[in-house]
């Protein structure tokens, strides 16, 4: 995680978090991100190969902004073994399923288990039932998913990347759930790792003192 502090009075702090999207193929992970980042939607979106990378900023309140570095991963089961490369040191994860596909919900549960077992202990996980515009084809009752989320300690949201429903709310909810205690987490961010997740610990981007030459890694 990283924190940016403005130089002047009343400046906002920006917290950087690494967020990873996981879930079965074709449940709408990329569409969700593209809706969130660009507010766009395409009926057919190319399948993600390897992963895609995005950034997006969410204002939490007048003084606080959260910047997500988003890793959108490929859904195919066969590439599962590469997933740790992306969720290593992620501070938040969005596990997506398709409410019209029962199997994708089961798959989401296994992702949650894997994250709880192997990812950062403090990771914030959100379970997302996507495609809720297709209510007539619903195969996973919202109550069931909600109950699972409560039991496993996850945020839960049903979204539609197509209509945009709840997409902004989802990321805002995650942002609010993030630990914004700069003191505690700026230290934690200082540890090094091979994944690049520890970067940049602090950047002074807000006061116009943006340093093109690179971030100070405190």
């Amino acid at each position, binding site marked *: 995680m990283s924190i940016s502090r403005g130089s002047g009075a009343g400046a906002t702090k920006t917290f950087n978090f690494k967020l990873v999207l996981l879930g079965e193929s074709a449940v709408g992970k990329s569409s969700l991100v593209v809706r969130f980042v660009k507010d766009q939607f395409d009926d057919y979106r190319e399948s993600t190969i390897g992963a895609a990378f995005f950034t997006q900023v969410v204002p939490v309140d007048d003084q606080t902004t959260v910047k997500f570095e988003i890793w959108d991963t490929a859904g*195919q089961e066969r590439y599962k073994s590469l997933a740790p490369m992306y969720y290593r040191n992620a501070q938040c994860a969005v596990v997506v399923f398709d409410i019209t596909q029962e199997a994708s919900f089961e798959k989401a549960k296994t992702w949650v288990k894997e994250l709880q077992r192997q990812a950062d202990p403090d990771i914030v996980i959100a379970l997302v039932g996507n495609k809720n515009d297709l209510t007539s084809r619903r195969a996973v009752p919202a109550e069931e998913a909600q109950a699972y989320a409560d039991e496993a300690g996850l945020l839960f949201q049903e979204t539609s990347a197509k209509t945009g429903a709840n997409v902004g709310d989802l990321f805002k909810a995650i942002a609010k759930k993030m630990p914004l205690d700069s003191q505690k987490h700026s230290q934690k961010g200082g540890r090094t790792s091979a994944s690049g997740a520890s970067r940049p610990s602090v950047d002074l981007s807000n006061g116009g003192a943006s340093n093109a030459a690179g971030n100070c890694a405190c």
Partner: protein
Amino acid sequence: MSLTTLREQGLATPLAERHLRSISWKLYLEYLPGLSDVGVLWPEALHKERTHYQRLYDRYVTEPSRQLNPATEPDRDRPRSASPDVDLRVYNPLSLAEDSPWQLYFQDTELRSTIQKDVERTFPDQPCFARPEARTALTDILFVYCKLHPDTSYRQGMHELLAPLWKTVWEESVALAEDNPDTSTDAIEAAVFQALDANYVQHDAFALFTRVMRVARSWFEISEVATNATANLRTRNPGSAGGARSPPVSDSLRHLKINELSRATPILAKCNNVFFQLLKRVDPSLFTHLEQLEIEPQLFGIRWIRLLWGREFPFDDLHSLWTALFADDPNLGAVDWVCVAMLLRVRRTLLNGDYATCLQTLMRYPALMGPASAPAMAAPFPPFPHLPNLQLTGLAPTQFLFQQAIYLRSHFHAAAGQLVAAQNDALLGIETINEPLPPVETYVTSPSLPAHPVNSRSFPSPRTGTGAGSPVPVAREALSAGSIPPVATPTTTSRSTATTVARRASTSQSAVFDSRLGPPAAAILEQCEAWLHQLATAAPTALDTSHLDTVLPLVMETLRYTRQILQNDPAAVGRGAGSATPSQLLRHLPEHLGNLAASLGIPNQVEGSPAAAFPQTHKPVADRVTEAFERTIRAPLSSPFSTTPAGSAMASARSVPLAPAMRSHLVTKTAHKTNLPTHSASSHPAGQRTSWTRPSDPVRAKSPTSTNAKGDRIRDPLGAIF
């Protein structure tokens, strides 16, 4: 026309003159056997491949659906399905028996649906892939391929390797009149039409796909070892309560596991090769920058390589790139180099970018410019030394990129990387060349050297000013002049040849040293590299031992002085070059010499002594290199050069102290160079070189001051040489 000529054309033929691409690809990928005896051999090859696919298609697509309905096909010669004694324990949809056709059916259905999920979203911007028949064809081809290779089966991304192949065959296919297939009397013409037959689009696409996949298949594999390695990154504590987490494995163990993963997974190994082997040597600064940002090559490399850049370039440009790639080598040997060239193409953005900017640039690659399309490009454009007459105007941007890639492949060193970087700058309309130095520690392979943020972050912002007195025009001129071998035709006398080389060396030297603001030690090494590059890019015929007589001593002498300076003022090393010791700096020379050997067509197996790689036929060359190497490098490093026996022996053997000789030589040449802008000579007279320092850079401001052999402080250490 020979196949070789055709391959050459595939690399660099302007768009307008291109042949039927599907035929070229069939030839490049060795589906069609060549250009001799076309009338006979092509029909044979086509028939063989098409029959092969038809058989597979029947076996995996047609037959299984028949087997599910044995009653409807009573006449088929299919004992089990046709028999009235069908075992209903096996032949029913609920059977769990492995040989039940229903089990197979369910598996196949799942596979097909997995494939379809991706085929439906193949190149959404290309309308042809939205057609139902296209989707069926792509699905069938992938399905058959997967049935044929059950271990690999279907992996996301294969569909996008197949799609451009299919589209090319489909677009150029010709519907032959069925009633009169043999209208053509010319056997060759008939064979060509046969190769374009619209009835066999699927068959031919499969044939091409299979050939590409011979190489590409491993890029889709994730080995079991790898899976285990990742799974074990955290070992679960069996004693803990459900869900409780075990402590993470130690960092070193983690790294071990990750290394294991990389080794066992071909795509990761390939990404690592691009980054840690190729880029590191070709562009040490860019490598260091990305490494410091902890941007791992697989993050962007997996997709680049798996899809052969299908997401990086527009469809037409992609076609040109694939044509070049296939033409170059049916085994796609240039893939890694294209990745390096792509990194160099965006190096300005990367070097000025932070983590997020770099990743965004690499994962959403910007539109590619070629020499023909770059609006801002100002002449002269630095040409490829080996292809001074390459027609750039008609080249697709990706074709030019490919030229850069194979240039780097054949000239695997940092000087070549600099040329490509200068070309890329020219495309951007940036007039600087020879930007400040790669950090010296990247010349040295020792992993223990600490990263040096000052060096890696010190790239100046692009300079566009060309006012009077600016070194930029000189630099540009010098770059072009200095990079056009062959330096002489074989008929030129060796003396003038040598002079040419030396003059070129002096030319580029003035450019390098005038515009260079970096630490002197590294600059000198850089200069050596440039000289070696001169040698390396010279045509083999022009390279006789007299070249070596002239140039090699220059290089060695420079290195010797470098060492002297470094030894007299070790602090200069610390300031300018990280914590590299002189011996570490000089240790890299064998590698340069190895490059030289490689450029002469001598296998580069340099280990210890570069001369070991020189075969007997190059004995004179080998002797010269060995001699110079032994004297310069093997000399004891503990004492200053002026007192080392080897150094003295070398100086006395020549009877004229080399450095002064070299200096006067270069001064003369500088004064006489009529082909350069005069301001070079007037504003930078020899011996009064422009300042090494930039006021804004306090770290560097100290570095130019050094000490000569007598202990006097000298302002410009290079003044001691030249």
